[in-house]
């Protein structure tokens, strides 16, 4: 295991009264290095944390963002919960899946409510929220990821003003 990863996990452990609390941040850190929570990754984390690999595996299988199988390094979570699906998210997900098919770099997943129903239908692309998305946005979105550009800058949630503008500023 790399010294950086070990140091990161130890730093997380130091934040909590009980080191076990660092399980999620530690697994997330290991996933960033290994690409997924592989048996080797889990063993490394267990070794640093002083817990059993089995206890960490139990944790890893519980959470949607921890991958327990190898996946593409770019995650595209398409929200397909109620509000997004009312606005066409199921078609969006299918289109995204089809467009990314065969590209091993992508991990396109349908996801439960991502908490951005105001930009429905939307997706979280490597953690960046974009929406509202149309089917026509799919090629540009994937292209931005492939070339390492910011994803659909105009549609990023970070730029969106609050809807409640009455009396605003």
């Amino acid at each position, binding site marked *: 295991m790399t010294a950086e990863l070990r140091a990161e996990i130890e730093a997380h452990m130091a934040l909590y009264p009980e080191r076990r609390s660092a399980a999620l941040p530690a697994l997330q850190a290991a996933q960033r290095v290994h690409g997924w929570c592989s048996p080797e990754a889990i063993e490394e984390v267990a070794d640093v944390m002083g817990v059993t690999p089995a206890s960490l595996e139990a944790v890893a299988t519980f959470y949607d963002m921890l991958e327990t199988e190898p996946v593409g390094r770019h995650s595209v979570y398409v929200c397909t919960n109620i509000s997004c699906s009312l606005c066409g998210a199921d078609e969006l997900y299918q289109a995204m899946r089809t467009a990314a098919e065969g590209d091993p770099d992508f991990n396109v997943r349908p996801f439960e*409510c991502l908490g951005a*129903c*105001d930009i429905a239908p939307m997706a979280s692309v490597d953690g960046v929220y974009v929406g509202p998305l149309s089917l026509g946005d799919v090629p540009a979105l994937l292209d931005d990821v492939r070339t390492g550009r910011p994803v659909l800058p105009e549609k990023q949630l970070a730029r969106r003003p609050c809807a*409640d503008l009455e009396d605003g500023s």
Partner: protein
Amino acid sequence: MSAKLLLRDIDEPGLNTLSVYERRGGYASLRKALQMAPEDVLAELEASGLRGRGGAGFAMGKKVSFLPKGSMDKYLVCNADESEPGTFKDRELMQKSPHMLLEGLVIASYAAGATRSFIYIRGEYVLQADMLDAALGEAREAGYVGEQILGSEHSLSLVVHRGAGAYICGEETGLLDSLEGKRGNPRLKPPFPANQGLYQGPTLINNVETLSTVPTIIRMGGAEYAKLGTETSTGTKLVSISGHVRRPGNYEIELGIPSREIVYGLAGGPPQGREVKCWFPGGSSSPVLTAEDLDVPYDFDSLAKAGTMLGSGAIIVIDDSTPIVELALKVAKFYRHESCGKCTPCREGTNWTVEMLERIDSGEATPMDLDIMTSVCEHIIGNCLCVLGDAMAMPIGSMIAKFRPEFEAHIEAARAHNDLVLARPAAVHEGALLAQGAV
């Protein structure tokens, strides 16, 4: 209607930074609170009548008062695992005004005598967690968080803890287990977290919006805050509105205004030519209401009286273009996916509800199945460690009760369609063969 307390400066450029937040009067409430005795701060919170903004609507001041006195380690945990479908209010607060949450959290910790605190934020909120971490760094530097805050006797450690994607971690005891590094399975209650919570210690758990309201209460005074809203639902509330509306987003309303004003006045109602078919008043866990209920005042008690709940303040509007079975299936599938599997009624009940709804859609159900589904829902409610199962049973039950004719029509139509298909193959097959000149 225009009482803007939480969203007053929300789009002020740089509000996420300490300098702008302070320029807008930030951290003055913390200074004021630290001059007061903790009991007096608690008294202000109680006088405000503030009810929890996460979903349960429990009086915040009372919750604080449940913590035992004494010098043991006490914890304050901010529930920022906003995952209730339709809800995105805490996201906007954390992203744009993180210091308001930090200030409220420090004040609440002072009132509760808590010295260690955590913000458990859902892992998907990457931007918001980064904003919080940056704000926390500034707040520490300025002496608002840490040892002997602003020269007082009060000290507080604070860690921003990122989840990893699990709806159940928004349930307070599931959250505690998750924060302890385990699977997020809810715990048996009692003991309640106020007595035995995080690391078995007394723990106060509050939602982001609840804590973000605390600085305002200290600034205005609890009694003054209580004048806003209704007698039992005081103050303002952020409402996240989405689905079939023209202007989805977060709006701050004074509790008690007619729901119609939110759905039509603020959010613009459904698109041209469409009508409201039904709406969730408080996230997907709340029983649905119909267009006839749009004049119900939007507050805790009025919505409870109407047979539903204010929940997290997330209104999802569904217009008349959506089949009710499709909606029910979406809802049920979500809870099936998120059920932690610990309690049988929830694990099996959510699964069988999905199976039966799929049967309705595929033409394999009879109207009697609606009674079985209702019975399944009734047997989930109140029979599990937490309310996740109830959160599916209540809306599904309400849909069947309010749209039964549509469910029955769907069953009949799907069956009739199947009959046609069953009757057809021979003819179609023959036709196809004929066309190919095989016979």
